[in-house]
């Protein structure tokens, strides 16, 4: 099994953190992984993205020509990566910012109203945590427990945010399970 | 609140503006405010108060705001 996920969005949307949470969750689960953040050439204020690869065997390239999953937190991200998703792949869209649907019909699409759900869960700032929860739930990459563990490991030192983040992650899982 | 002729006025290029809000700091007459609606780059740009409330001095075209604006986003006009 090998799964390549690209997280993409504005600088401020906590995109890299989402990938980081997924990585730590996968470590906790005992998977191999690589985490490749975009860097450099993209200058200040631009969009950020990272590629996370999970596998039960050795991972070759940390760069993905064709991601299995695209997590698009804004529209430019969808535009940029839609074409590269593998046939039958998954696109998880931040419904709060991305109105339009992908053009491709050969991929599955999940729309997550991250901001609204986060507000419900306590604070809009948890939008990215809602998203990672939804992504893990939908893709089955991580269980709820592993995801929460991943969040805790990824945010070591910032313990005061754990409860709020956990709520948001759980909300993301519930959204997938209950469809709302 | 009454519209009134001002000694001066400014225009702010809201897309060029990066929302550092230094201009707001320096305007002696408080004629600039924060525009909460973000611009394309995601900054909250400065907004010139076209209208001044009773007692407010209004823009005098002193150009202090323009002088400090890092983005050269402000043009200043003075009534002649």
């Amino acid at each position, binding site marked *: 099994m090998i799964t390549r996920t690209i997280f993409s969005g504005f600088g401020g949307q906590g995109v890299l953190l989402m990938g980081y949470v997924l990585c730590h969750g996968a470590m906790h689960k005992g998977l191999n992984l690589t985490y490749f953040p975009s860097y450099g050439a993209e*200058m*200040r204020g631009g969009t950020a993205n990272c590629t996370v690869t999970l596998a039960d065997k050795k991972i070759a390239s940390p760069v993905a020509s064709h991601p299995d999953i695209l997590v698009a937190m804004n529209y430019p991200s969808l535009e940029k990566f839609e074409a590269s998703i593998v046939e039958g792949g998954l696109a998880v869209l931040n419904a709060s910012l991305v109105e339009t649907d992908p053009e491709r019909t050969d991929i599955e699409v999940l729309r997550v109203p991250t901001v609204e759900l986060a507000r419900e869960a306590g604070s809009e700032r948890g939008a990215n945590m809602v998203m990672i929860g939804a992504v893990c739930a939908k893709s089955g990459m991580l269980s709820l427990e592993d995801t929460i563990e991943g969040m805790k490991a990824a945010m070591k030192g910032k313990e005061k945010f754990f409860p709020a983040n956990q709520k948001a992650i759980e909300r993301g899982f519930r959204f997938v399970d209950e469809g709302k | 609140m009454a*519209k009134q*002729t*001002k000694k*001066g*006025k400014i225009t702010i290029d809201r*897309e*060029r503006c*990066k*929302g*550092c*809000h*230094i201009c707001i*700091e*320096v305007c002696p007459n408080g004629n600039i405010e924060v525009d909460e609606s973000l611009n394309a780059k995601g*900054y909250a740009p400065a907004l010139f108060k*076209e209208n001044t409330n009773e007692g407010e001095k209004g823009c005098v*075209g002193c*150009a*202090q705001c*323009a*002088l*400090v604006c*890092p*983005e*050269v986003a*402000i*043009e*200043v*006009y*003075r*009534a*002649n």
Partner: protein
Amino acid sequence: MSAEVAYKKVFERPESLKDVPTHYCPGCGHSIAHRLVAEALDDMGLREKTIGVPPVGCAVLAYNYFNFDMVEAPHGRALAVATGIKRVHPDKFVLTYQGDGDLAAIGTAETIHAGNRGERISCIFINNAIYGMTGGQMAPTTLLDQNATTAPGGRDQRLHGNPIDITRMLAVSDGVVFAERCSLVSIKDIRKAKKAIKKAFQTQLDDLGFSIVELLSPCPTNWKMSPKAAWAWVKDQMTNTYPLGVIKDTTGYEDKK
């Protein structure tokens, strides 16, 4: 209604500055310094005879913003490159625009010796007490106790030495005829800075020697402050280590007046 009144424009973008957005962060001093340099060149009618050398630093892309000839110099070597240019075109106006890491760390020898040779070059020195472009490492100009990514817990005199005052070192050379330190964080300071820049440029036109204007400049991003706080930090902290004012002036301009 104001529409009825006729207004005339009293402040607009100088011609020496292209009408394009910059990549600088909100509240960055580079942007203001760029405008002052451009205004000075406009005022003195120098744009078309100017050849500028930007640094490697946050201002590396200055050639995208300034509206005159420019050439990129390797990190720290702007004044060596400028020396080559000036010797080929003694009749043209040559300036360098450099950061504190570029000018006072890796470029120390080039800086000291261009000054000592009295090269007819004007140097704009942006001192923001940090390595901006590379992400906030300690600069030789970093203040004591100031945080930097390579000075965890703040700059420590015993480990890292004191902030360097290269402009005062330059002033030791007879070849350096004008050196002034200004800042960019108040109306008054900005006006002063522009005057200093024009004076520095004049020394080159008058073939007097090397001139430098050091500009204390905010770097909100790497100082991890709001623009407002950064501007205040320059005024309250930086100027203690780097007092403002004329450091050297052997131009004799004042006497002439």
